[in-house]
Structure formats: C-alpha cells, structure tokens
C-alpha cells in the first residue's frame, strides 16, 4: 500500500435493512485519496455518494442503515473497528465534512461564535487569545466580511454563502487529514459557487489535507479535482485522473454524464440526456447495473458484473467492452 494515501476505502458495503427489503445503497465501493489530493466522487443523486460519505464518518442516519463489509483506512487505521468513543475523538480532528445545505447545517438557536467555539475549545483553548478572538480569526481566514460582528450573529442573519464559509471553517479548523465536501455548493448561487470553490482550494493549499469532493456536476469536478471516481447504483464504475477521464471517458455512463455537461463553447449544441432510470437499489440486477440504459449493452452485460479494467495510468473502468481480448 502506498503510505501517501490519507484515506483508503476498500470494498465498502452499506445497506439499509427495511421492512420491504434490503437497500444496497453502497455495494462494494473502493477508492483512495492521497494527501493533498482532491478526489471527486461523481454520480446522479441517489447513487450512494452521500451514504458513502456518512459511512466513512460512521454517522449513518438511523439504525436501519449498517455498514456490513469493507475497510475504511484513515492514515492506515481502520475506522470501522473503532468504538463510538474513539470515533468521537477522530471526527473533526482527523476526518471532517462539509454538508450540502448551509441553511440547515448550523444550529439556528446558537450564535456563530458559540458554534465555532466548540471546535476551538476542542483544539485546546489558550492558544492565541480568548475563544471569541480566535473565532474571529477563524472567520477572517475564510474571508468572511466583518468577522467581529458575525460571531455575535445567528445563522439566520447570514446569507447562504456566508453560512457555508462558516461551516467550512468549522470543518477545517482542526486541520483534519481528510475533508469530505458533500455537494457544498449545490445550494448556493452560481456566482457564489465559484468563490467558494476557490476558497476551498486556497485553504487546502500548503496543507496536505485530502479532500473527497462529492458532486453531481462534472464541471465542478474539472475545476476542483485531481482525480475523479464515477459512481453508479452503489458502485464505482470508473476512476482516473480528471483530465484522463474527461478526454477518454471509458464507461458508457461516464460518457453520457460528460456529454450532458453544458459547454460554453458549444452552447447551441443539443445536450445529451440519459434515457431511463437507474435500477432500484433494493432490487439490483445480477449483471452490469447500467445495462438497461446502456446503448452498447450486450448479452454478457446482463449475465455478470464486469471487473475493473485498466484503460490508462491510474485510469480504470468497469465495462465488459474494455475487457482485454
């Protein structure tokens, strides 16, 4: 194993055990992120991206959801074997996350400063002035205007973009090895999205923090990420360096996704859409999960799931068409 990996996920399975059956939201996902690297995790909504992220943090939403198999190595330590108490020590300090919706991720009844102070206190107080002064500093770092006032304010008094900066500040304050960003800009205005992405980039610079960047938007991936993993129906179907994947998408799903991204240069051109619906996660087919929607589907696609075939440097995809002859 490469010691440079901040996070390695191996064969992760997270299932929801419901009355009407087992929903295999994450069904054998493997990927890894190097220190200082940004890995994009891309896919349609409902393909299991967020569940993957929550599985890594061991914060699955309710008791029906369980990670049943796999390993999550953070700096070489398997998180799945940790006790709840140990996990609390790890969360925030070694692995952290920015949630999707800035409107709801801050507690409405406490001030910004109060919510920041919790992580500041965790980091050990007494470094660099009072907690509130530190909080102001933290906000300044995320380029929030008038930070002295902001610490006194409540979340509803801030705009969505400001809130997301606060959330980012909270998530990154303790300098985690891995930061998961779960569609952090989806809920923001287009103009602010870009600012926020740049901010994330800036903050990551000069640190060796790895970022797992979850999104459904290939355009964002192109801007943010070093490598990308494409997820479909609970599995990764293609991984590779961003440029590689963009130039040479190998899985039909990836191809369709990239084709559906609007390109400024070709604004007049018709956008591609993917016909059909992804399979129900409670009733997955034996074979390739994309087969039903795939223009190239063959008989063997129905019969068995393809393995990951290498198509280039660090670039692999799960499609029978890529099987070496």
């Amino acid at each position, binding site marked *: 194993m490469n010691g440079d990996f901040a996070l390695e996920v191996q064969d992760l399975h997270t299932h929801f055990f419901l009355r009407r059956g087992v929903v295999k939201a994450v069904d054998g996902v493997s990927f890894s992120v190097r220190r200082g690297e940004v890995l994009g995790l891309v896919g349609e909504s409902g393909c299991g991206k967020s569940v993957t992220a929550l599985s890594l943090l061991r914060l699955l939403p309710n008791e029906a959801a369980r990670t049943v198999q796999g390993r999550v190595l953070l700096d070489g330590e398997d998180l799945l074997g940790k006790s709840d108490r140990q996990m609390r020590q790890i969360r925030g300090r070694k692995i952290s996350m920015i949630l999707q919706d800035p409107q*709801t991720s801050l507690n409405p009844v406490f001030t910004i400063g109060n919510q920041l102070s919790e992580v500041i206190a965790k980091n050990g107080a007494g470094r660099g002035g009072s907690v509130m002064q530190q909080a102001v500093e933290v906000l300044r770092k995320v380029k929030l205007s008038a930070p002295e006032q902001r610490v006194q304010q409540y979340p509803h008094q801030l705009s969505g973009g400001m809130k997301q900066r606060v959330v980012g500040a909270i998530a990154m304050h303790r300098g985690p090895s891995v930061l998961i960003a779960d569609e952090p800009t989806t809920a923001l205005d287009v103009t602010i999205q870009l600012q926020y992405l740049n901010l994330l980039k800036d903050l990551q610079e000069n640190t060796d923090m790895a970022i797992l960047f979850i999104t459904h938007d290939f355009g964002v991936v192109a801007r943010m990420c070093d490598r990308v993993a494409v997820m479909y129906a609970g599995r990764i179907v293609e991984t590779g360096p961003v440029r590689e994947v963009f130039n040479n998408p190998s899985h039909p799903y990836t191809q369709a996704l990239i084709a559906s991204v609007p390109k400024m240069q070709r604004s007049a051109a018709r956008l591609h859409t993917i016909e059909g619906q992804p399979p129900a996660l409670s009733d997955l087919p034996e074979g390739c999960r994309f087969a039903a929607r795939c223009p190239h589907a063959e008989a063997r696609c129905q019969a068995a799931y393809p393995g990951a075939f290498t198509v280039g440097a660090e670039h692999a995809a799960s499609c029978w068409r890529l099987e070496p002859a």
Partner: protein
Amino acid sequence: MQRYIVKRLFQGVLLLIIVSTVVFAVGRLTGNPVDLLLPEEASEEERQAMIETLGLDGPVLEQFVVFIKGAVQGDLGVSIRYRQPAVDVFFSRLPNTLMLMPAAMLLAILMAIPLGILSALRRGRLTDRISGTIAVLGIATPNFWLGILLIYLFSVQLGWLPSSRMGDWSHYVLPTITLGTFLVAGFMRLIRSSMLDILDSEFVKLARIKGLSEMKVVWKHCLRNALIPVLTLWGVFMGGLVTGTIVTETVFAWPGVGRLTYEAVIFRDYPLLQAVVIMDAVLILVINLVVDILYAYVDPRIRFT
C-alpha cells in the same frame, strides 16, 4: 423586541374586549341569578325586589355600559353569590390555583423532557414503546376518572394520602398527578417527535462531525430546538390546563379559580363570571406573553425579525 411586546399587548387588549363582550352576551341569554338566589317558593314580587336590589333591572345595553365603565377602572362588579367585589373573590382563590398549576407543569416538564428525549434516542425500541404507551394512555384517560381512581386507591384503600383539600405537601400529590398527566403525555409526544426531526437534521450531523460528545449533542444542540414546538403550542396546553383545573379542583375540593369558574357559570353569577373570564384571559395573555418572550429567547429567528 419592544415593538413586538407592545404589539402583543395591543392585541391582548383587543382580545379582552372581544372576550368580555362575548361573556357578557352569552351569560345573559337565559337564566337569571336571582332565580338561583331565591327558594323555589318565592313569588314574582320577591323576585322583582331582589332584581332591583342587585341592580339587574335596567336594559341589557345599559348594564353593559355600566360594566364597561367599571371594567376600565378595574371594577368588575360585586359577585352576586358572594356579595363581595368579584375581583377580590377571584384573587382570594388565585393563589391556590397558582400553587397547583406550576406543580403540575413542573411534573410534566420533569417527566416529559427526559422521557421524550430517551424515547427519541431509543426510537422503536422497548423504552420508546413503553413511554409511548404511557403517553397515549395519559391522553386517553379522562382526568376526572383518573382523579376518582387515585382517591379511591391511595386515600380510601391504602390510606397513604389525603383525599382532598389543601394542606401540607401530601395534599398536592394526587391533584398534581391528575392535572399533570395529560401534560406529561402531550409534552412527551411533542418533545419526542421534534427530537426525531432534530436528530435527523443537518446541524446535529455537523455537531457530530465536530466530534462533540453525545451529551453535548443531545442537551445542547437538540433540547433547545426541541422545546420550540412545545412553546409554540403552549397556548393549546394552557387551554387544556384551565379545563384541567376546573375538573381537578372539583374532584379534589381544591378552592381555586377553576372551581370558582364552574360555580360562576352554574350560578349565573354574572359579575363573577365576567371577572373570572376576563381575569383568566388576562392571566393566559400574560403567561403567553412570557412564553413569547421566552420563545424569542430560545429561538433567535423570532427575536431578530
């Protein structure tokens, strides 16, 4: 905030006017207190004489004017039954009710918060089911029935507690339970359900991502938010509490305002009835105002708009 309070106060005064007009009208529709002050043999002559003595002989509109004039000056008339200023009668009973209501509320809060939180945290498990059943039972059991059963069991059969009336602490036990039960149940369900919503919320996730302890997540981040709906529905609970005091005070011979309210209706003691209803309304308004302020304290979204 100040403007908000002023606005609420203004609304309160408006409400008081509506309420007192309605009471004045409804109280006078049928039934006359004089009939209830006289024995059944009394003649029309006696009746007329007493109507004059009590000043009930003018036209209704005139009486209304007199009533409003007095009310503005804080004089709500003389109780027909007690022959004392109605406001005095009300205030002589108020402390007794004010001993009972907070006790019931305290019981409700002390029981409902831990139980509600526990059952939300243990959703679907045995703890949740047991406390859920207790909650629904609490709502389903009419409190007069509960009161009678409690008296029979704990006073008559076991002899542990006094059956009624005011006295030392032991007198408070049964009425408090009787009055508090439905509140416990109501609060508990409310806290449980809002806790469930909150536990699923993003900010709780973020609190966990921060690595906060479970105690801090539950008691700091969840509880305060979970109390918001309790405060929102406070008005409804107040209504229930007033109803509860009428029944509970009757069962336990508790000399409070609830019992007084019932008497005022039954005996058509117009001045007393008006006083009781208006003072009740004032009381509820004041409590609601306090709750509103509390609400604004708990929920900054209210405070700053």
